[in-house]
């Protein structure tokens, strides 16, 4: 990876979206314990193509996401691969924070009028705000990533949030394998047991990485990923 071309900090409870080109990288670093980054991905050339976590999980035979895993679209292509990861587990099944979770948890909603940009936002509204900028809406929502969070399942399939999974300074790096529209937020995980709405931000560094080949850690992770990269190669046929 190259030196970062751009670095920024996104405070807790906020949102952003950007287009990342093929060959770019995004490193996210937790600036507090148990931070959470909700993320969705779309193809800017065809916004109907979006992140598909069921396909992502089943083709890699996994319930968790970590280094070596690829993030697939519903069209059998790889939006991004996880090339570095200090956590070993990122959640793909917990979904998003809704207004009703705030009420059920007793998290006091704080308005802009009352607290300006320290207001409390939901992950659901955060995605809707970012998606609307591209003509997308509720219909375009999909199961989202919850980077830095861990939801474990026991043998009976009971789910539990694992507090303390993410430490300050833990980081994960995505390498984009095709041009990708990324919508992200730093709102809490819907199962976060914190007593008050937690404000935990993330440092974001953007850079570039060489084009992967068959020796790449994500390419080699499983035969399915090699075929995913073959689909991307087909998609980019004739491109520089």
């Amino acid at each position: 990876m190259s030196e970062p071309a751009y670095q920024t900090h996104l405070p807790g409870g906020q949102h952003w979206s950007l287009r990342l080109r093929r060959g770019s990288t995004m490193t996210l670093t937790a600036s507090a314990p148990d931070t959470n980054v909700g993320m969705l991905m779309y193809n800017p050339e065809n916004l109907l193509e979006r992140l598909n976590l069921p396909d992502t999980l089943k083709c890699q035979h996994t319930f968790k996401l970590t280094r070596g895993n690829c993030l697939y679209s519903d069209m059998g292509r790889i939006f991004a691969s996880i090339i570095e990861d200090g956590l070993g587990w990122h959640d793909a099944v917990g979904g998003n924070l809704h207004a009703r979770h705030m009420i059920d948890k007793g998290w006091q909603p704080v308005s802009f009028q009352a607290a300006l940009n320290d207001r409390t936002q939901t992950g659901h509204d955060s995605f809707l705000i970012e998606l609307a900028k591209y003509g997308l809406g509720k219909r375009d929502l999909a199961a989202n990533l919850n980077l830095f969070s861990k939801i474990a399942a026991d043998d009976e399939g009971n789910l539990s949030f694992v507090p303390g999974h993410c430490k300050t300074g833990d980081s994960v790096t995505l390498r984009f394998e095709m041009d990708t529209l990324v919508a992200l937020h730093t709102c809490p995980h819907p199962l976060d047991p914190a007593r008050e709405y937690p404000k935990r931000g993330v440092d974001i560094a953007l850079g570039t990485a060489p084009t992967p080949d068959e020796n790449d850690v994500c390419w080699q992770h499983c035969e399915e990923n090699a075929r995913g990269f073959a689909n991307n190669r087909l998609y980019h046929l004739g491109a520089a």
Partner: protein
Amino acid sequence: MTIASPQREENAVFRQFIDAGDHYIGTVKAGQTIRIVDVEGNEAADTLFFNANDPSERYSAVDTVREQGKVYLTTGTELRSNLNNVMLTISADTCGRHDTLGGACASESNTVRYDLEKRHMHSCRDNWMLAIANHPEYGITKRDIAHNINFFMNVPVTANGELYFDDGISGPGKYVEMIAEMDVVVLISNCPQLNNPCSGFNPTPLEVLIWD
């Protein structure tokens, strides 16, 4: 949990078989009960639900599993929407558990899972695409096709984060039944997958029954 239904087949207001590799789309009114039967066993019913009055509200696997704190679906499970509302409740289940993590097969994901030369093989998403193309009256387009339920499929998750496709725990005549909590459109693909055990390598019919 396995619980049989008191509903009698002869009292159903609607009955229809879905052949292997075929689809069904129709409306279930609030208060009605819908049953899906695995007629010959080892079949997978890839199912989506939409709010009949606003299809931008639809079944959401992640909201469903998070709110019940469990990955498998069975009697008592509230099937939730992307707005976290309850759409239907599973009222009877003679199979025992159903998957909602594994998603549906598609021509494109088949290339990743099996082989690039398998892209021509029939798939659940192609089934859904034909259903919504032939039935524009429901207002459902490709944008609305999301994470589904795989009734009768067995996809175990382990404590260390593995997920795999296992032989079915369903059998001939087993069924799952749901009471609609709102008017819903149901869209079912009778899974045509021939590359894994979800249809026992021998896709067979499903049956849909509805009671008032």
